[in-house]
């Protein structure tokens, strides 16, 4: 079996050997066990179900909350020649959705967002198939104590039951022991085979610098990059800042190619920038968290946080994009006073406040009084309630939980005041919890002990021995860092006629293209 698995890995993915944990998880999956797998970012979680999809009869269903990640994976698989993959999400055109519905049985690997599973028609279609494996990706979303709690995940056990209990594989890169327990409880699978691997990566070095102002941060970055011109990601929490910083760094670093990336860009530009970075045409990318999901660039040497994300889990994931090739890489965090204001504002914008809850309840009450029980389409609803989708998702979950709603219908009338009070209390608690997460990361940045130990303490008992440098607290200095560099070439003179010939494989200049 061992031998066969290796052969299959080589055949379908072109890899010579498994990475840590993959084989163990796949073996259990193939034996039909329910499995919980915690694997660090960048360790190839997706192989754990993509390989079984090739080996098992029937289809593998993957629930993933990250639409962009789904699409990236679908794209990558399609690029590798796998056409029997489909991702159901809001971006799929109606036409394609209908076609895919009709031919559902032809797919080996079906990705779906948790929202899709709310549709009874879709679940019915699925139940007519043979689902050989039910995968819950980003399984920490199922826990209230996970950093990205998604209420829709709580209904997954119903779906599993409807599908007549196929083997379940729950995967996450960041789950504390508490969250791990919650995952198997919420899925109603108490006897999962557990494969928990430490999340720390021995080739990443940690450093935190405290500075007074944003412009000092920029200066610090340009100094570091002048000394170490390496492939770099810089994370920001606002779109404006990515653009501003990219412009300033471009001016300060004339020998490097710097660009920005955020979710507000034109789609065609997004593809070009992302692929330039993947293809080593760009050295530095200034981005928001929208960049990087599903990105598997091996040689990122430096991940800088100009702003901190709202919790430790995201930070670990973002840092985990560095050094996937195992070579020496650095995480640099830049702190300045009042850095916590942005994430705080963000959190408050994610959860409904007291007045908003009251407004929504008033709206529903008046509909019921008019004898109208069905809610309008989501876009129209959000528009008339003046409320964001995230907030509505939260409210909707709680309405359903209190039996007030069922499938877009309000179920008769209620003790509105009590429910309003209850939901307000939950929202307030949730806000408090999220704010505490922000503080946790800030607290970490101010610790005097070893950064590696402090960062991973909530997740695991021990940390690996660093293979290069540990952290600034353990004596690391940038001046001692000697990373492997691969700087891009900046072309000096440009001749469109020459360039066009090259691109279109014309004549003699054709020979000059270097193989990638």
């Amino acid at each position, binding site marked *: 079996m061992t031998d066969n698995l290796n052969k299959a890995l080589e055949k379908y993915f072109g890899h010579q050997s498994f990475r840590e944990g993959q084989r163990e998880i796949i073996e259990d999956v193939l034996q039909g066990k329910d499995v919980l797998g915690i694997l660090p970012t960048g360790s190839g979680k997706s192989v754990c179900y993509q390989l079984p999809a090739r080996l098992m009869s029937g289809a593998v269903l993957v629930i993933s909350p990250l639409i962009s990640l789904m699409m990236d994976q679908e*794209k990558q698989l399609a*690029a590798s020649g796998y056409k029997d993959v489909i991702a159901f999400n809001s971006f799929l055109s109606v036409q394609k959705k209908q076609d895919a519905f009709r031919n559902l049985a032809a797919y080996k690997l079906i990705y779906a967002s948790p929202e899709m599973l709310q549709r009874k028609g879709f679940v019915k279609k699925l139940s007519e198939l043979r689902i050989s494996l039910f995968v819950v990706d980003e399984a920490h979303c199922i826990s209230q104590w996970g950093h990205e709690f998604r209420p829709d995940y709580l209904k997954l056990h119903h779906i599993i039951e409807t599908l007549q209990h196929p083997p379940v594989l729950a995967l996450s890169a960041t789950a504390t022991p508490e969250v791990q327990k919650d995952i198997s409880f919420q899925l109603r699978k108490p006897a999962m085979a557990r494969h928990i691997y430490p999340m720390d990566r021995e080739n990443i070095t940690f450093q935190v610098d405290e500075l007074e102002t944003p412009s000092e941060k920029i200066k610090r970055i340009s100094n570091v990059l002048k000394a170490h011109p390496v492939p770099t990601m810089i994370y920001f929490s606002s779109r404006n800042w990515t653009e501003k910083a990219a412009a300033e760094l471009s001016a300060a670093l004339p020998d490097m190619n710097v660009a920005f990336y955020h979710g507000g860009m034109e789609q065609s530009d997004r593809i070009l920038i992302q692929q330039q970075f*993947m293809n080593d045409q760009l050295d530095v990318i200034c981005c928001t968290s929208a960049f990087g999901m599903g990105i598997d660039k091996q040689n990122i040497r430096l991940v800088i946080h100009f702003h901190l994300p709202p919790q430790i889990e995201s930070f670990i994931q973002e840092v985990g994009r560095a050094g996937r090739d195992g070579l020496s890489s650095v995480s640099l965090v830049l702190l300045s006073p009042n850095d916590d204001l942005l994430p705080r504002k963000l959190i408050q914008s994610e959860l409904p406040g007291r007045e908003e809850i009251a407004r929504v309840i008033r709206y529903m009450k008046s509909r019921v009084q008019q004898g109208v029980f069905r809610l309008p389409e989501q876009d129209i609803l959000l528009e008339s309630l003046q409320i964001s989708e995230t907030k509505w998702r939260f409210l909707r979950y709680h309405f359903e939980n209190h039996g007030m709603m069922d499938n877009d219908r309000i179920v008769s009338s209620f003790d509105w005041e009590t429910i309003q009070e209850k939901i307000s209390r939950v929202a307030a608690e949730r806000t408090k919890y999220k704010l505490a997460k922000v503080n946790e990361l800030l607290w970490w940045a101010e610790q005097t002990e070893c950064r590696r130990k402090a960062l991973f303490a909530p997740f695991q008992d021990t940390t690996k021995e660093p293979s290069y440098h540990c952290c600034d607290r353990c004596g690391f200095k940038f001046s001692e860092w000697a990373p492997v560099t691969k700087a891009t070439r900046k072309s000096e003179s440009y001749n469109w006629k020459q360039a066009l010939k090259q691109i279109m494989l014309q004549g003699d200049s054709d020979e000059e293209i270097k193989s990638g």
Partner: protein
Amino acid sequence: MITIIILDSLSKLKQERTSAAVYHLLVGKRSSQTLQDAHIYHLTGYFGIAKGMDKHAFDQKVENLVSKHYLAYRGDKAFVTEKGMSFLKNNENHGFLLHYNGLVYDRAADLFYERLSLFIQTAANIKRGNHRFIPVSDNQEVLLWMKKYYTAARHRLQELLDQLYGEMLPFLKRLPEQHADIFVKRLSGYSHFGMSKVQLAAFYDMDKYDFTVLYQLILHRMLNYIIYDSTPTPTLATFSSGLVKEVFLTDSARKTDDLLKQGRNVEEICKIRRLKESTVHDHLIEIAYAQPDFPLNNYVSPDAVREIGEQIERLKSRKLKQIKQALDDRYSYLQIRLVMAVYRAGRRKGVEQ
């Protein structure tokens, strides 16, 4: 570039519309009003060439022109000053403005480019033996088209690249050096991804929207070259086929048009579609502009057409109220607008071909 487009538009609007009308035109708002304005004032070329521009950015550009005394206000309408007119006429880009063909190429220009660039990328990679690459377009419509096209093209990729190269080269040579640079720099090939619009704008130190409209200019010129120029471009033409619509109607007007062609009258259409009469009237106007064979006499008698036409000519104005009063209120707004539309559309056709 965009500043002279704004100046040109406002000068053609002759203070009969506010600058907001120019904004709606540039972002390609699909409303009857905007489409009519585009036709009446000969601004169809600029329709939708600055999609995604926000109103604030537009207002700033207008304010900027006012502060340079190229524009001034009379009431709430901006007009182009003498200084503005001479700036416009002497601008190095002035000659390019007539290449814009926005209303006809709306949506088509971008889809054409996505098809073309995706094919070049695909062919170059496959020829080089690289079957694993991330496509530069993830537009489903484009990918689907490419799948079909590729099935037929897969055995003659190099031949097609050669033909495309041969057809593109004379076109690019006609362009100013900078425009050709921009076009080629954005292309992706084997193991090479082109520059994004934002990168190109920054490289040439251009304002975002200046670049947007310049980029559209290049695409429009290319489509003009394919469709109107005497140079044969059979290979390029396969990439634009089916995209360029002869008749531009909003989706709603198209439905009304279908019902008209089934013999329904305005009243019936209002009932069937649950629309207000004024909305269906707007559709009639739109259809009248778009279709030269619009049956005008179903709505206005031939005598009335002549009378209204003479009055429009005499007043040299597009102000409906003025025209209606000059005709002693004997005709409805709908009738006047229809005559205006057919008259314009007809003349336009006469001038162009």
